[in-house]
């Protein structure tokens, strides 16, 4: 029984790895089981799991926003002059 628990119990480091792995690659049934057992007992990793999904969502929106006009417009006169002098 003790051995079985050792196989099934993950550290938080490993559990948080699996949480982020899951958003990229399908986990094996064993990994899923390990992760579910861990998050059922660990508040830190439970919170991490939720936040990992929030981050996915925000990152997706941020990176996909391809609207150039939404970006803060800056001026860079030095760059302008530098390029002109090189032409």
């Amino acid at each position, binding site marked *: 029984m003790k051995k079985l628990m050792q196989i099934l119990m993950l550290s938080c480091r490993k559990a948080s790895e699996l949480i982020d792995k899951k958003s990229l690659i399908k986990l094996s049934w064993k990994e899923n089981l390990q992760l579910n057992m861990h998050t059922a007992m660990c508040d830190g990793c439970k919170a991490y799991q939720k936040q*990992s999904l929030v981050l996915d969502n925000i990152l997706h929106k941020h990176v996909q926003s391809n609207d150039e006009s939404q970006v803060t417009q*800056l001026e*860079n006169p030095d760059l302008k002059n530098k390029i002109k002098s090189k*032409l």
Partner: protein
Amino acid sequence: MQNVMDSTNLKNTVKCWVELYSDNLYSWALHKTSSKETAEDLVQETFMAAVQSFGKFEGKSNPKTWLFAILNNKINDHHRGNFRNPTINDNSFLQVFFDQHDNWKPEEAPKQWEDETGNLFDDAEFQKAFEYCLGKLPDGWFSAVQLKYLEEKNGELICQELGITPTNFWQILHRAKLQLRKCLEINWFKK
């Protein structure tokens, strides 16, 4: 004589484009790379490329659209190049978060955020904090994030293209997210 005329013409046209669009291009490049120097280099390269392939332009499209297409290709190449040599053999990074038994250090354990809906993104102040935190990521990690969320391809496909192992890829994304999460907690959620 004809050739000399053409090349002066071309240079004047491109100079005019620099005047008109370099700030737009720079702002975009900075948004996409989070690095002032990289953004400046990429915009410069964009105009050099425009001079060289001017023949392909032929006034068929809007110059601004054309320049942005060149720049976006360069930004993509930059992220791919950056990502080929990422640093991940860094146990000291993980030691910030985990104790000797690999469990969360008490002060690092994630606590519930007040707003977990993801509507946060509509908040301009949050976006500022978010971009600040993105900019703090090491180059290779930042590029990994861009590649993952930009193309929405599955992980394995990206890895094939980049010639890296999937393990490498998600390990980097994992570290990037650990760091982002912490940075947001300090700069946004604790306020």
